[in-house]
């Protein structure tokens, strides 16, 4: 098997995540889809690391995980805050970007 298959899988997962971000309205699900995209990227990093014989890809994937964890923490806190005031976790309800 060619390790490129991992990369293709990563691409598919990434675009599935992206589609989820675009199509789902529940903020928590949107968040999960973002996680999926990050994970897809991580898979690519890990695979490239193996293909190139250097651990740097794994390091980057490691950092990505840490940053993703941070992001989840803050993001979920924001969702909670918004939910508290609006009683809704739909991203379409928070339209403050529009004047």
């Amino acid at each position, binding site marked *: *098997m060619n390790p490129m298959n991992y990369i*293709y899988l990563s691409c*598919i997962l990434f675009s599935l995540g992206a589609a989820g971000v675009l*199509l789902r309205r529940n903020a928590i699900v949107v968040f999960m889809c973002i996680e999926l995209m990050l994970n897809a990227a991580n898979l690519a990093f890990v695979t490239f690391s*193996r293909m190139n014989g250097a*651990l740097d890809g794994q390091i980057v994937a*490691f950092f990505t995980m840490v940053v993703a*964890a941070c992001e989840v923490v803050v993001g979920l806190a924001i969702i909670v805050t918004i939910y508290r005031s609006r009683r809704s976790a739909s991203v379409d309800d928070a339209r403050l970007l529009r004047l």
Partner: protein
Amino acid sequence: MNIAAIIQNQTSHAESVLFYLLAPITVICAVGMLLVKKAVHSALLLAAVMISLAIFYILNEAPFLGIVQIIVYTGAVMMLFLFILMLVGVDSADSLVETIKAQRILGIFAAVGVGGLLIALVSKGNLGRPLVGLQMANGDGNVQGIARLIFGQYVWPFEVVSALLITAALGAMVLAHREPDSDKKNQRALSEERVRQSSQPVAGLPGPGTFARHNAVDIPALLPDGTPADLSVSDVIGARGHLAKPGDFKFIETTDEDREGK
């Protein structure tokens, strides 16, 4: 380890089998994540995807990351998601009817486009590249290799990221924390408030049966003028119609015969 293994372009058969087994499951789970209505189901499907990704990491000679993936993602992050889902309401189902014009078609088009283009570009970019493998790099063990890099070359980013983690924790606390609407009331304020609300008796409600002939819970207390005080009995009793009237227990000069007649 031999040179041939290093420059081989193929992975082992066992790995192939595992991949072909797991990859469809992963994709199906990811697709299902998009399609299911309930957020909890999405979370469970995502957890499945992450676990299979952890296996892929291990297959890709990154056991450390695979473990971390399971601990951090499936363990911690997904747990967080579930907690939040609990806060928001587990059964909050998402309507899958699209409300923004053309969003669904364009979104699918864009997602498919990105996926297709990425695959096309990546496959073009890889033509004839050999697989190096991590046998050399993982010579002292994967964890050791990663540790050498993290605490060597990448120590500065590592420190920065740790600062980021702390900041994120603080940020979450600040965001989730709710300031009380007003200062906490002290005893003085409370009692003043009570006195101002003239409809409420200052010294608590009168007990049932006070000054009445009987002290059962359904007997209202009597006010000085002899009228019953409704506040002294529970509303429930009144609502059920079990409330006794003061007249029911009129004082009657009873004689011994009467008592005995009863």
